[in-house]
């Protein structure tokens, strides 16, 4: 179909079509180079010996040194931050997916008093910027002695209105008969949820899971406020703290590469889920 349109163009306005193609190729190359440049700089500068770097020679891969990595991985902190980030991200993914699918299924397929009021008030919370609730949430969590704890960091993020909304929409589009049949067989509601609902919503679990994971992995303000001791930092707040403490650039960037590699690897493998997850949910955390 595209080729047909292209041929029509060539016969009609051959020259301008050729010029347009060449211009397009050049523009795309420039845009790709500009997009990738910061990644290249991050990696190449992380492999420099400690000391001042001068542009443009800094962009050459030599002098090559793993000093930055030795320093950043030698200190216990970055390993601890990686563990913290993994805990924060993975526990949240499991929690959000479980709670949101349970609630989404109930909102979509069960009739109970207050259902619509509840669902719409969940939705209304999407309109309230996160930053307005952040101070009271911090006060509440600190009153419960949750500052510098995993549960204090994770629990408030489990109230995810977007996830509930997407789950409800997805499950509502599935025929009731799927769920009725199992219930007539005498399966308990919990069995229906685990053996019928969960397998049916696998595609959205994967997409939403990737999105929630990414959001937590890159989250900054909340971990910054709630994880104040060095032991409770995540990779984002840890790397920001390195930068603020004037740690040498190669060391900060080595830490950045450590934080980036898992996301990059996951992106290479499951790009489809990333693009779907982010476009479906709208906003990056």
């Amino acid at each position, binding site marked *: 179909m595209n080729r047909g349109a292209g041929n029509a163009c060539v016969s009609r306005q051959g020259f301008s079509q050729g010029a347009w193609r060449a211009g397009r190729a050049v523009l795309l190359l420039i845009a790709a180079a500009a997009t990738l440049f910061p990644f290249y700089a991050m990696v190449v500068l992380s492999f420099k010996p400690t000391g001042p770097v001068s542009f443009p020679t800094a962009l050459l891969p030599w002098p090559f040194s793993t000093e930055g990595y030795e320093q950043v991985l030698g200190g216990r902190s970055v390993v601890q931050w990686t563990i913290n980030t993994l805990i924060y991200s993975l526990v949240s993914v499991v929690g959000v997916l479980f709670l949101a699918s349970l609630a989404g299924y109930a909102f979509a397929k069960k009739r109970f008093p207050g259902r619509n009021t509840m669902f719409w008030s969940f939705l209304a919370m999407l309109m309230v910027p996160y930053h307005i609730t952040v101070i009271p949430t911090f006060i509440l969590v600190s009153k419960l002695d949750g500052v510098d704890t995993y549960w204090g960091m994770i629990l408030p993020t489990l109230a995810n209105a977007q996830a*509930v909304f997407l789950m409800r929409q997805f499950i509502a589009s599935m025929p009731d008969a799927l769920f009725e049949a199992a219930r007539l067989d005498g399966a308990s509601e919990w069995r229906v949820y685990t053996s019928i609902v969960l397998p049916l919503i696998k595609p959205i679990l994967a997409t939403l899971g990737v999105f929630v994971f990414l959001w937590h992995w890159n989250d900054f303000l909340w971990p910054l406020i709630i994880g104040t001791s060095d032991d409770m930092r995540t990779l*984002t707040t840890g790397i920001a703290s390195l930068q603020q403490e004037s740690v040498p650039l190669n060391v900060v960037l080595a830490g950045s590469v450590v934080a980036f590699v898992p996301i990059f690897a996951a992106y290479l493998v499951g790009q489809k889920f990333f693009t779907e997850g982010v*476009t479906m949910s709208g906003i990056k955390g």
Partner: protein
Amino acid sequence: MSATPIRPAAPRRRSRVLRPEARTGLLFVLPCLLLFLAFRFGPAVAGAALSFTDYPLGADPTWAGLKNFERLVNDPTFWQALKVTVVYTVLAVPASVLVSLGMAMLTRRTSAMTRLYRSVFFLPVVTSLVLAGVVFTWVFSEGGPWSRAMGAIGLPGGSWLADSVLVLPALVIVSVWSRFGYGMLILIARLQDMPVELEEAAMTDGAGPWQRFRHIVLPHLRPALFFVAIIETTVSFQVFDTVYVMTGGGPVRSSYTLVYALFDQGFRYFDLGYASAIGVALFVMTMVVAVIQRLTLGRES
């Protein structure tokens, strides 16, 4: 319960005791509901309430009436934060939408090549803004790539992050870099819904590329462009990570945004009442922008 259908008393019992379906429904929603009450609804109400109190961290909040808001309107720092946020948004949203549109047009025809380009352009979207901030701090540093490039073409060549006027454009560049891949994908999805015949017909009528873009593609894209603009406005209004990492609000508060002000007042000066008032101001502004956008959107469609 299984015996209820044959009992004549069943309907009355149903009205007093919840039906099993309703019980399950409520039970399944309950965990989410409790979390929402504790961490979303509660804090939203409390956030508004706290803005009327004097609340230094560690002490108890005391009623302060409108004191925080009086202080807000008389605080030059707040007006600076408001100005910075608005200028940043006004620069970032059109820049982001335009670059998204350009890249969507360049990669709209699906082939192995454009697919590769799309995944390159989307990579910054999944990258943490903290990491981006660390690298771009170097990119914009004195004598770094950006200052050299700008110096070479006759633009101001020092560190843009140290310049009270250029610091916002520098932050906008990072924002566009990090966001355009998202807008691009939304626009491509919309472009793929467009009937090919429309453009082909225009072509046979002798319409050039610009005319086809202006009169066929652009009107078709309009709703998607509005959607991207709304998302980008929300994101720009709440800019924080890059400001924290790259400028700390400086130089001399030239990049002191509203969310940064909220963080600064709440978690550096521990003035939680005043920080909550900034939060309420942020909320009101978000609402105003949402209403304006809804009105323009409504008129357009």
